[in-house]
């Protein structure tokens, strides 16, 4: 009995700082986010009650909806591209190879580099006149593409860059999944005379479904956080085509000092992320069942 009381007390002492932290820096901000939705507050004067003004404004704020549309354009390019590139590289790495560690490490390299650096670096790679990419294209006779200044190419260019930066991370996820495909299954399907394509289509791909769901979910959640890339590379332009939701949230908080409205955007974004992730899982689940 005494030992238990001592254990209870030590447990409490050790856990209390964390509990306090969760209350102050997680629970309180979450609740306060909901409160901010009905407030108007510039951080200088006292906050005033605004009822549903923020929500109503948000519902027909063309700039917000454009940011939502832009972010979806980004996701529509980024997520499929991420799945295909990560799977392809993982399949290549999953064979008996010389220098396997080196290949893996090189694919993972951009993952450890700050997004700010990658954005600055790709800004110069994408430069119209002196950029590396246009110079390589020129060698095969393609006219220079104004990657970041043409409204049609700016967001795809950013999506390709983000895919390049993160692919190594998703390769590791697929590699982990590939290790669990039993040798016996592979041998059996080979004895049946299946072609490489059939083996991939009917054995590897279905068995990797959990990893594919994970890659889709994580790259979607990650994609919704798009901020530093348009912030550094395009400032949201040209023609606001690369204005992401988080960039719009940041602008409202930092440039316009609209805390209530910025928090409303945050709440809306969290809801959108939740809805999209749930929907994706359903769609992938149904496709699997069919």
């Amino acid at each position: 009995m005494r030992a238990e009381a001592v254990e209870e007390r030590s447990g409490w002492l050790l856990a209390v700082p964390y509990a306090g932290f969760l209350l102050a820096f997680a629970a309180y901000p979450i609740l306060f986010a909901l409160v901010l939705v009905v407030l108007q507050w510039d951080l200088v004067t006292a906050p005033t009650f605004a009822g549903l003004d923020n929500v109503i404004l948000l519902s027909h704020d063309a700039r917000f909806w454009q940011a939502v549309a832009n972010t979806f354009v980004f996701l529509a390019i980024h997520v499929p591209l991420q799945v295909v590139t990560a799977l392809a590289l993982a399949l290549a790495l999953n064979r008996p190879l010389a220098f396997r560690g080196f290949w893996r490490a090189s694919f993972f390299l951009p993952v450890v580099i700050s997004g700010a650096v990658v954005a600055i670096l790709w800004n110069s790679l994408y430069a119209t006149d002196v950029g590396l990419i246009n110079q390589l294209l020129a060698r095969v006779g393609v006219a220079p593409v104004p990657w970041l200044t043409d409204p049609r190419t700016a967001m795809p260019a950013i999506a390709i860059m983000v895919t390049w930066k993160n692919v190594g991370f998703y390769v590791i996820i697929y590699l982990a999944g590939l290790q669990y495909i039993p040798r016996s299954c592979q041998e059996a399907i080979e004895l049946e005379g299946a072609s490489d394509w059939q083996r991939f289509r009917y054995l590897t791909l279905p068995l990797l479904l959990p990893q594919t769901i994970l890659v889709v979910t994580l790259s979607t959640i990650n994609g919704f956080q798009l901020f530093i890339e348009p912030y550094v590379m395009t400032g949201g332009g040209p023609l606001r085509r690369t204005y992401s939701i988080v960039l719009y949230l940041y602008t409202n908080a930092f440039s316009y000092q609209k805390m209530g409205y910025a928090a409303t955007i945050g709440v809306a974004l969290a809801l959108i992320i939740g809805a999209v992730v749930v929907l994706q899982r359903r769609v992938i689940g149904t496709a699997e069942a069919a």
Partner: protein
Amino acid sequence: MRSVRRVALYGVLALAAVTFIYPFLWMASSTLKPPSEVGSLSLFPGHITLDNYRKMWERAPFGRALLNSAFVATTITAAVLVLGSMTAYAMARLRFRGRPLLNAATLAVLMVPGQLTLIPLYTVMVKLGWIDTYAALIVPYVFNATAVLMLRQFFLQIPQSLVDSGRMDGMGELRILFTIFWPLAKPALAIVAIFTFMGSWNEVLWPLLVVRDQRLMTLPQLLTVFALGGGAGSIGVSLASAMVLVVPVVVAYAFLQRYFIESMAGAGIKG
């Protein structure tokens, strides 16, 4: 047929590796080139110059930013390791009321996207008067739910007999944690340390919100402000400033790549 396919496989791998490595090599070499050469694809500067680095160093306090980043990331990592393992120890090895609730809260926190709490947290910083202080950069990160969960998972695997014999020797819980558990938990601690340090080292959005004073800016933030504000003036200078952030990471990565990959991939899956 077999050998043709092997050649093709290595060709694809080599092409992919070049795609990932070449831009960084080009960046490093461009910082050593005079402006007239920056546009060239070559990795070897015709004339090597340190001008870009000199200009970058003169125009913005990058030395100070390097120290800020190192200080902030080190403090956060130390706090996450020490405080996180104290919490994880309690949650794994001690029975107390409220433990299941704390467990559930930790899992719930991981489900909440950061953008939801970004603005409320920022207003908390303003109200506390922490704008333009190290506290704003450090305190919101001293605990990390992912780290607590990972360490807890690891601590659960350590045999109870070690805890019991420690107690029989009259050791307190903290001594058991730091003298018995820590040496056994080195791999888990390394994994937590790497993703915590890297997360802090690379973070930009939060510093952009809570710090405006150039002397308090972390490296990625100063880099961003420098490149955007036109302070850099040229690609070479801008890339040179990025090198200050990249070189320490790449050096560490070269030696510890296995741990980096395990740590950063693992944290992402759980977070």
